[in-house]
């Protein structure tokens, strides 16, 4: 299944992706479908971040727009792909009490992404 992160405090990844434009959104969605169907083997991708064993990946288009998605595997080998976040380099983000300056990926991982992962993967 392909889903998107949503939380009353921490925001909605689907809205974030749509806000970056439909062309970019379509590219990301097509890629998520390929990961979900295993046409793209996520094990050959470099994880952007890992939260307690759950791998998250970064995809981008051009210099600025990016999306982060997580991949989980269940006991039957089926994948669940979650769109965790979508943003734009140079554009700060705020989600709950966490924020991102729009520049440092380290602070994005430690801040918003970690906060979202903590409420999502339990």
């Amino acid at each position, binding site marked *: 299944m392909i889903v998107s992160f949503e939380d009353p405090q921490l925001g909605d990844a*689907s809205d974030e992706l749509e806000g970056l434009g439909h*062309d970019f959104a379509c590219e*990301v969605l097509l890629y998520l479908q390929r990961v979900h169907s295993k046409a793209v083997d996520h094990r050959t991708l470099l994880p952007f971040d890992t939260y*307690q064993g759950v791998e998250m990946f970064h995809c981008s288009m051009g210099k600025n727009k990016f999306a982060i998605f997580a991949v989980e595997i269940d006991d039957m080998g089926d994948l*669940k792909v979650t769109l965790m976040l979508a943003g734009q380099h140079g554009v700060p983000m705020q989600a709950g009490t966490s924020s991102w300056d729009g520049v440092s990926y380290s602070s994005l991982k430690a801040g918003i992404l970690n906060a979202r992962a903590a409420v999502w993967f339990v």
Partner: protein
Amino acid sequence: MGKLKVEASNERRSTTSAKIGSKGRGRPIADLVEKIERADPRLASAAGLSSAAMRAGDLVRAMRKDAGLSQSQLADKLGVTQARVSEVEAGIGSQGPTWDLMERISVACGKTLGVAASSDELQLAAHMPMAE
């Protein structure tokens, strides 16, 4: 496709499953595709995205899981490849599975497929067989 960049790993990792998980959380991504379809129908179609195909895929996956079948086992019952089942479940393509295929899948999963019509939309639903 091809505009998107994703960094590749140096080597293929082994499969690992985390002890934690998102369980049933998450809004179906078909909701976003539906918004794009309404705002820009030609873009979604040209890109090969269909919210209906994705929702049908989610239904197939739910029926298969409920029946305790793997994708390969369902594929064997249908006489198709596992890759085809995987494509259907991912909602790949702008057309989605045919009604014939959906009926065959539901039968293979021990379900009965039905369509419920309301004033402004059609809803596809799978039902458990009626108790005898």
